[in-house]
């Protein structure tokens, strides 16, 4: 899952990046409205955390421009302005959620998870797929109730596949959603990680669809 953070306060930006990375997200960050707008406009993000008081371009305007350009990723507005008039303005601009500063990181993470789940059509905080079970709250995956050890890249890959289970996910989509912008995007690495994952879960669950990509599904055969 790839997250964009647009926040001009360096410390807060760093904290958000670190907290979200720890929670297993691929995180990009921007420090002003223009940069944020550009990233959101060109990269596929699963969630955006957007501050409203940004230099160069106001957060609300950034959001409006994305929505006008049909960029429909979930956006969580992060703002010090917590009056209802501000909230309504944010929601009307196309925000999906609203978090007022100062906030507790746990709450923000919960809101991010909720947006990711909602976008992929899952209503509950844990996603099940056959014997696999993903607890988005704790970022743990269990197989038949037994926790499996995953590196952060493996987790991101499996979590993405589980959010989009029963759907063919192309390699490029995986690259775009799993890695930060400045990551060396060699699609071969995906193959490597798929190979490693197949050793930790029932190997048939991840199917390679030639020329298209991968699909996570419950093995019925």
């Amino acid at each position: 899952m790839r997250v964009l953070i647009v926040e001009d306060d360096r410390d807060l930006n760093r904290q958000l990046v670190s907290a979200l990375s720890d929670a297993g997200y691929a995180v990009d960050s921007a420090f002003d409205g223009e940069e944020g707008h550009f990233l959101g406009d060109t990269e596929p993000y699963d969630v955006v955390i957007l501050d409203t008081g940004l230099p160069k371009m106001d957060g609300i305007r950034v959001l409006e421009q994305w929505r006008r350009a049909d960029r429909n990723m979930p956006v969580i507005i992060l703002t010090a302005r917590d009056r209802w008039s501000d909230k309504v303005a944010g929601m009307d601009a196309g925000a999906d959620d609203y978090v007022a500063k100062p906030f507790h990181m746990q709450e923000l993470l919960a809101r991010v998870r909720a947006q990711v789940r909602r976008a992929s059509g899952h209503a509950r905080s844990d996603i099940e797929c056959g014997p696999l079970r993903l607890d988005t709250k704790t970022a743990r995956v269990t197989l038949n109730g037994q926790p499996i050890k995953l590196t952060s890249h493996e987790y991101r890959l499996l979590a993405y596949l589980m959010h989009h289970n029963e759907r063919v996910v192309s390699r490029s989509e995986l690259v775009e959603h799993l890695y930060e912008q400045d990551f060396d995007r060699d699609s071969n690495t995906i193959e490597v990680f798929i190979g490693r994952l197949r050793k930790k879960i029932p190997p048939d669950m991840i199917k390679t669809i030639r020329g298209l990509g991968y699909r996570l599904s419950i093995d019925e055969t």
Partner: protein
Amino acid sequence: MKPNSLALRLFLTAAAWVLSIMPVAGYIIYARYHHEMVTAFDARISLFLAVVINDAEQGSEEGPTEPDYWGEGLFVQVHSGWYWQMKPLDGKPAEIMQSRSLAGDYLPLPSENDVEPNEKEVRWANLPGPAEQAVRVAEMIYQFGTGKSAQRYSVAVAGRLSEVEDNLAAFRSQLIQALALAGVGLLAATLFQVRFGLFPLTRMERALAAIRSGEASRLEGQLPSEVRPLQQELNALLKSNQEIVERARTHVGNLAHALKTPLAVLLNEASGDDSPLARKVIEQADTMTAQVSLYLDRARMAARIGVIGSVTEVGPVTESLVRALGRLYRDKDLSYTVDCPPGARFKGERQDLEEMLGNLLDNASKWAHSSVSVAVSALPPANGDAAAGGWLHIHVDDDGPGLTADQRAEPIARGRRLDETKPGSGLGHSIVADLAYCYSGKFELDRSETGGLSARLTLPLAV
């Protein structure tokens, strides 16, 4: 009229002038009239004197003859006050001739009282006459005949002095009455003039009171040109005052908001740690957060005075809030029903209505199982009395678990959360109550028809 008032000053100066000018005017008029009266009276006596002498001379060269009976009967009627008398001088034993009105009494003469003659050889004097009547006597020493038969006579004519004095007394009393009436009239006119002239000030006073009570934001109305500069200055002062308040409000807001990001940083930095220092930082940062919110609300609340002139449509505010909340609580798939009569308007600021309704709807959405309803009803002022003001009733109901009667009855204290398990600042209800109170409205909690919570707001209606 209050002491130390402009009206009293104006009235007192006018009254002092009127009261001092009236006697002076009275004196001048009276003196003039007196002079005219006496002159006319003297002219009449002089005329009689001339006629008596002329009549007496008609006889012969031997001496005067008794004048004829002439003149209005005044000189015939006994003790009429009008007399003539001719008294021979030079020791000649002739008899004294006199008018019948004297009835044999002797008319005292100025010459016997050491009165000197004037340039016309006439002596004038006011003397006690017969029958205790004061008379004005004109006396002339006249020589009748020529040569040896020439005889000098003291010819005197007297007029009743009381005739003049009665006239003067009547005039005096009439003059005093007239002047008193004029004075009272002038004072009344002054009073009216002062009242009428200063009425714009009374109007201005009312307009200022309206500003202070928040019904108006500036001094309105066509005031007279003398006070218009004052009006302009006052309005400029009010405007600059509002700007200062607005600026201070913005500064407080900016400060509070500027503090929130560092607070968020502190909170996050500390929450990654479990040391006593980190715990202390979290605790203190939470306190600071609460303080920032508290004073931010206070600043908003304080700035509210003076902006009560605004009017907000309830419908659009409710709809946009419902739209926003529908998005925020999209997962719960709540159904929102809004029942708001078109044109229902709240007498107050849009932001405040948003704040109250937003908090209530947020609470309702948080707790509702499936539906939230907003019902707005407008109660126009009784008897069409616009000054009394009507009320707007807003009910926000949910079908959640609700509160027990005891919980509902508990006072809604600031910062107190009725249930700590749901996220939120916990300030929701108390902000609503504070705001409603600001608008002299009401906020109550009750049980909704579906067993959930029914939050009931009563706010002033804009007619």
